[in-house]
């Protein structure tokens, strides 16, 4: 699949990721939100990954080291992708950032506060959308607004606003099982945003979608991100996806999981898939991963 | 230690503790002997049941065999009839839609409510009980056979067709084997129903059989024999369902594989 991009998809519709034709994207897209330059100077590091390792006890046998000491600092409002093969520990690292797993050594600090468990305000989007099937789209998003100061009506309003942001205001009353994969992930993103989190953690969120929907969702994510700036940590196994989306790409190798490449992608968005600068980065990353 | 092992050990401990506390509670007068006969008394009752029997002359084996024999007759007749009828109904959708409501209704009739009627028609003897069991088992088995045929994975049928099979041959070589696991499940369900029916049916008008035993024991204030009888009934039910499960595993080994493939 990666080869197709290297060969260069000459399809005009895909040449410039963020230029959308009305037939492809919902008509209510605000093109102005897409246009301004991204990648403004990041402020201080908001996420500090300080010597984090993760070992699992062997059953039987010696312990398996999934992550060797990882030291990273991620800037505020940056879009950072973590790329690697399956099993290289990227999901584990994300779970540690989310507080869903505890590191064997080291610690993670967000805005200076150590992560001790889930629910400290990080928004998380999973590959399997994990929407609550008994709630409508609006219900799922409202679930995320847990601020007790808000009344029920306020919460509903916020949910509606977020659904509008992700382009699903017409689907507010639908249940997850009535929605397509792309719609489900949009709701998942809206739900994570409902927390008004400082950081957004995304674990291969488009991995379960078909190719075309995936590309569409990449557009959408950039559009949403430009409207609601957050620090994003985006896990993916797709190099091209990382290149389209991020300011910075961190490549992990497997066994044990460790950082083998830390690349800044300083290209203006929207980025063309066949752009030579992009392809150069691609070659570089591919060379590291397959070495 | 693995989880299942832990669970089993805790289970044994919990039950052991319960029996121990029970014995003590009766000894100390917290529980009345008649209402909560302690394990020691139940053990005595067991000895009696195995040797002299209760009512005198009918041992626990005799009771158990009587009950089993009744179940077997009714069950065998029901299943033998339900399979061919169900296969025919399942094969013809129009017939199925015609008979569906009748089947559902007859299944909804509480089998034991037929007991008085059965007594009027067949007397108070063995035939009544066998007929009752047969009735209960028949409708459950029939529903399951029909469902088994209807729920054969259409992909399998298509595959069979692509090999040129059709009509009776398709039915025999594809539909039938595919329906067998569900039919087996139906057979297990039917046996469970038969078991429940006989226990109730034996409580009226007979002194032989496990259901009769526990009722008789009560009217003679032998509560420990009642509890003993209940335990034997439980064991019997457990053995029956376990036995059928084992049989299913042996006769239909491909079923678990098929599930994995489907997933």
């Amino acid at each position: 699949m990666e080869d197709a991009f290297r060969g260069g998809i000459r399809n005009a519709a895909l040449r410039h990721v963020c230029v959308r034709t009305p037939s492809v994207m919902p008509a209510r897209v605000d093109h102005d939100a897409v246009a301004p330059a991204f990648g403004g100077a990041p402020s201080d590091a908001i996420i500090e990954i300080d010597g984090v390792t993760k070992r699992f006890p062997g059953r039987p046998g010696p312990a398996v080291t999934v992550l060797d000491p990882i030291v990273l600092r991620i800037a505020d409002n940056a879009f950072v992708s973590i790329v690697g093969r399956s099993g290289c520990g990227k999901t584990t690292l994300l779970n540690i950032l989310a507080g869903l797993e505890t590191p064997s050594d080291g610690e993670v600090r967000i805005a200076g506060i150590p992560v001790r468990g889930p629910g400290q305000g990080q928004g998380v989007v999973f590959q399997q959308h994990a929407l609550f099937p008994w709630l409508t789209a609006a219900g799922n998003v409202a679930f995320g607004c847990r601020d007790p100061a808000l009344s029920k009506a306020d919460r509903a309003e916020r949910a509606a606003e977020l659904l509008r942001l992700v382009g699903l205001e017409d689907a507010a009353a639908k249940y997850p099982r009535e929605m397509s994969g792309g719609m489900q992930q949009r709701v998942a993103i809206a739900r994570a945003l409902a927390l008004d989190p400082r950081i957004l953690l995304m674990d291969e969120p488009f991995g379960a979608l078909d190719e075309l929907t995936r590309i569409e969702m990449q557009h959408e994510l950039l559009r949403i991100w430009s409207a609601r700036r957050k620090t994003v940590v985006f896990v993916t196994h797709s190099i091209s996806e990382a290149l389209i989306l991020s300011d910075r790409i961190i490549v992990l190798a497997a066994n044990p999981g460790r950082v083998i490449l830390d690349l800044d992608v300083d290209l203006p968005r929207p980025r063309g898939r066949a752009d030579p600068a992009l392809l150069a980065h691609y070659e570089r990353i591919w060379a590291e991963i397959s070495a | 230690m693995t989880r299942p092992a832990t669970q089993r050990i805790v289970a044994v401990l919990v039950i052991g503790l319960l029996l121990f506390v029970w014995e003590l509670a009766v000894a100390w007068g917290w529980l009345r002997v008649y209402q909560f006969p302690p394990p020691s008394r139940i053990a005595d009752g067991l000895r009696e049941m195995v040797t002299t029997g209760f009512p005198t002359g009918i041992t626990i084996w005799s009771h158990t065999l009587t009950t089993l024999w009744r179940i077997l007759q009714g069950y065998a007749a029901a299943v033998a009839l339900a399979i061919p009828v169900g296969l025919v109904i399942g094969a013809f959708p129009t017939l199925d839609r015609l008979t569906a409501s009748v089947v559902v209704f007859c299944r909804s009739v509480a089998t034991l409510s037929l007991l008085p009627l059965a007594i009027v028609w067949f007397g108070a003897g063995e035939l009544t009980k066998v007929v009752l069991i047969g009735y209960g088992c028949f409708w459950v088995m029939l529903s399951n056979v029909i469902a088994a045929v209807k729920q054969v994975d259409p992909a399998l049928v298509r595959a069979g067709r692509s090999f040129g099979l059709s009509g009776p041959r398709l039915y025999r070589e594809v539909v039938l084997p595919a329906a067998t696991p569900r039919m087996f499940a139906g057979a297990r369900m039917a046996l469970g129903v038969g078991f429940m029916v006989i226990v109730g049916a034996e409580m009226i008008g007979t002194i032989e059989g496990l259901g009769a035993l526990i009722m008789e024991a009560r009217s003679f204030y032998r509560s420990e024999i009642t509890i003993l009888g209940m335990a034997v009934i439980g064991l019997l039910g457990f053995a029956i369902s376990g036995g059928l499960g084992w049989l299913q595993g042996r006769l239909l080994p491909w079923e678990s594989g098929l599930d994995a493939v489907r997933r």
Partner: protein
Amino acid sequence: MSGVRAGSDALLGLAGICIALLAWEAAARSGAVDPAIFPSPTQAIAAATARLGLADVAGHAAWSMARVTGGFLLGTVAGVVIGVAAGWYRGFGLVARPLIELLRPIPPLAWIPLAIIWFGLGEPSKLFIIFLGAFFPVVTAAYHGVTNIDPGLIRAAQTFGLRGPALLWRVAIPAAAPDLATGIRIGWGLSFGVLVAAELIAADRGLGYMIINERNTGGSVGVIIVGILIIGMLNLGTDAMIARAIDWKIGRWHGN
């Protein structure tokens, strides 16, 4: 398209019942068997209305329904609470499960003599038996539902800061609802079956009593048959109502 199909299904179903009734009527009238023993549907109803007033029958039916509803509610509440707790709190489950599994193979009817020993011949003993009929399927379904929740849902809920009882109440129980609903429906059917038996064996009111009393006092077979039919229709009707309720509440969001 599906509307037409459903309509013709219903029509055929009705036709099937009519055919069955007609066959019964014909068989009975053929005179092969003494009509006192084997009445046709019309004869049965005629005999029944002659023997008992509508008020009597309705009274019996009301008693039966009250009993089964009471026992069922008790069994369901106990089953849900214990099943969910056993599934959610591992320690409790380790202790409760063996006890439940030990008692489960004993059919509810086998508890009748013991129920009489414990509670006497009045209402409580019958309620207890019906309670047992509902309890076991519900507790099993509740346990299964809680222990088979998609772990992804729990993780997602945790990222929103849900923990402990809030997690159980807002996420685990709704997620387990489909299984619970199935268990409840099965429990109702079993309760109903158990009700009749319990009333046959030891009661002085109710539909089961009405039937056995008729037999014991050498009365009309028609009453017995009508009683049986009423029980069957009540069972069917209430089950259909429960199925509709479940479909309405859960069918909207469950299933692929």
